[in-house]
């Protein structure tokens, strides 16, 4: 029976709709996972060298032991966010002559098929094999491995259990990250150390390998808890996470922009109330940390803004890039209605520009905190801001009129390639390259600050002539609206 279920899942995966076009994407996905696993493996093999390099003078074992609990805490939070509940899969079987026990078993086994469960093995096994077994004997090594596998299984079922219980797991994950950051700070200021606890626990396993069985017991306990919960709640409506009562909301500050403001308010609701758009936009917020990677003292001193400009464009314009990439596919399910109602195309376009401009402005204000490092960063960011304000949205919207792929709003955006077409893939390229078209020549002539000024001025001109570009976009939209609408109807 279990094989039949898994067989159906397998078929479901390979016969998924729209698979013909996305086979290349599947391959890329596969390669990506293999690549990540490869990275984890390399990381695992060279872990003792890495530890010695980054934490010189500390005993390797102590650092390794200290890291394990942190790894699993992070892993748990990522699972909460990314791992999907394999529940819908059983709906077609609920009414058939199949005992509940088997369905629950299937759900539980199905849940093990997740890349999350392979990573710890690849990451920790080499180190355990090479270092732990070497120092403490092979029995201790195997028990170490058992502890790691048990922790992974424990996380696997605990994440699913919490997800099934809790209404809003996003809030949970954010709270979890805050707690983790807090613990990290406590660690840093040497108030309280999880690493020390982790180290104590795993050193104990090294001495007394049988202690590892405690983790196994924990994993079994969570498995049983999850299974019994499932058996008691094997009803279609209870398998999903609980739902809160929905209320109407208003964004009065947008009213001053008239009809375009109303459409922008509509789009804000679209973003907040659909899983795919919400996760796309919230993921964009992570990119405001790009500055930490790209803003380097050396480059600031040399006034070489090339790479910094890249980061600045990405940070100030990430809403334009990430959300604009799938434009107008976000509205694919109501597109016919928008076209046949009394919505003017001009306002429709203006609303989107308004939304992009608000987003870029807010993002720029937030990343202005980087200005504390150096005023030069502010100069770079404001040049990028004007670009994201005046040029990028118009470019993105123009390319959007060539995008005929509907977006399925119900699934999350992590590793979701549905609706990704050639246009959306290529869209980001000109956005990244175009700033240099203005920056580089002016830099050659007058120096880096002239480069920034040129970019800023061009962006500002684009913004001030926005009403002209709106007309261009309206024309482009009207020319291809039948094709867009047709594409959106075939989901």
């Amino acid at each position, binding site marked *: 029976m279990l094989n039949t279920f898994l067989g159906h899942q397998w078929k479901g995966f390979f016969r998924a709709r729209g698979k013909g076009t996305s086979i290349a994407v599947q391959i890329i996905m596969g390669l990506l996972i293999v690549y990540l696993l490869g990275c984890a493996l390399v990381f695992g093999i060279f872990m003792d060298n890495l530890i010695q390099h980054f934490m010189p003078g500390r005993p390797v074992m102590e650092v390794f032991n200290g890291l394990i609990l942190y790894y699993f805490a992070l892993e748990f939070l990522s699972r909460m966010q990314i791992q999907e509940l394999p529940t819908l899969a059983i709906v077609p079987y609920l009414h058939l002559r199949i005992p509940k026990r088997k369905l629950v078993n299937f759900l539980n086994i199905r849940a093990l098929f997740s890349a999350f469960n392979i990573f710890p093995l690849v990451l920790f096994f080499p180190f355990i094999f090479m270092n732990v077994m070497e120092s403490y004997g092979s029995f201790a090594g195997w028990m170490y491995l058992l502890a790691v596998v048990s922790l992974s299984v424990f996380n696997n079922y605990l994440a699913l259990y919490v997800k099934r219980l809790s209404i809003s797991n996003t809030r949970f994950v954010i709270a979890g990250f805050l707690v983790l950051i807090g613990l990290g700070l406590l660690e840093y200021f040497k108030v309280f150390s999880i690493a020390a606890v982790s180290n104590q626990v795993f050193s104990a396993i090294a001495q007394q390998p049988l202690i590892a069985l405690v983790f196994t017991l924990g994993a079994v306990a969570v498995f049983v808890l999850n299974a019994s919960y499932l058996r008691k709640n094997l009803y279609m409506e209870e398998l999903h996470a609980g739902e809160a009562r929905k209320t109407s909301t208003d964004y009065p500050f947008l009213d001053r922009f008239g009809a375009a403001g109303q459409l922008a308010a*509509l789009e804000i609701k679209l973003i907040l109330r659909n899983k795919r758009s919400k996760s796309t936009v919230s993921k964009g917020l992570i990119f405001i940390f790009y500055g930490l990677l790209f803003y380097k003292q050396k480059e600031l001193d040399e006034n070489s803004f090339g790479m910094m400009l890249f980061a600045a464009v990405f940070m100030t314009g990430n809403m334009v890039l990430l959300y604009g990439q799938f434009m107008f596919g976000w509205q694919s399910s*109501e*597109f016919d209605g928008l076209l046949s109602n009394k919505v003017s195309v001009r306002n429709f376009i203006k609303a989107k520009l308004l939304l992009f401009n608000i987003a870029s402005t807010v993002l720029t204000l937030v990343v202005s905190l980087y200005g504390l490092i150096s005023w030069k960063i502010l100069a770079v960011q404001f040049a990028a801001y004007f670009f994201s304000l005046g040029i990028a949205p118009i470019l993105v919207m123009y390319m959007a009129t060539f995008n005929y792929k509907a977006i399925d709003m119900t699934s999350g955006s992590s590793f979701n390639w549905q609706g990704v077409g050639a246009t959306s893939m290529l869209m980001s390229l000109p956005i990244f390259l175009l700033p240099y078209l203005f920056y580089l020549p002016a830099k050659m002539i007058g120096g880096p600050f002239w480069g920034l000024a040129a970019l800023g001025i061009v962006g500002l001109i684009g913004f001030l002539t926005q009403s002209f570009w709106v007309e261009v976009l309206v024309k482009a939209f009207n020319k291809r609206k039948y094709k867009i609408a047709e594409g959106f109807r075939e989901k």
Partner: protein
Amino acid sequence: MIVEIKDLKKVYAGRTVVNIPELRINEGETIGLVGNNGAGKTTLFRMLLDLIRPDAGGIFSKNENVASTDEWKNYTASFLDENFLIDYLTPEEYFIFIGSLHNMTRTDVEQYLQRYLEFFNGEILNSGKYIRDFSKGNQNKVGIAAALMQNPELLILDEPFANLDPTTQIRLKSLVRSLRTTHQATTIISSHDLNHVTDVCDRIILLEKGQVIKDIQTTENTLMELEAYFSA
């Protein structure tokens, strides 16, 4: 005359799905569009609403080609399918949005909805759900009520009786009738339910493979005539 169709043609993959040399629809008419699946009803509606481009000819609403101006949107309301709803809004938000397109204030909309409490049967308003979480029948009700709310001169509904419960079907019929008597609205309805269309419409247009093969004023014999056609 409010709508005029001239030499209209739409071809999909070599197959002609709509081919109407001439058709005129007058103000105040209630028209039932019938025909089996694939007869071209929805395609015709979509061309009427400028959602797909005709391969030849055109549709003129008040003498203006619907594909070249937006003028018709001022007096035309329609509900074809769920793609017309904005499914992540609550019904109230959706009504207020549609109302705002026709310069109705929030209070106008709320007042208007009072008249439809019976039609909604207590299931639509204050339900605490987004439109996407409603059953298909209730989604239909939201779409139909939003269309009626626009006080249209031209109302276009694609299979409005499908998925509705019997009580609501009867209420919908009386709503359509009152639209005609109160302000001479023109209504075009497609349906597979011959009883309903002959009951509420005063003119029946029968499509087959994209062509108009019957165009008759409704009499007491119409139902039998249609049944004879469809059972043949």
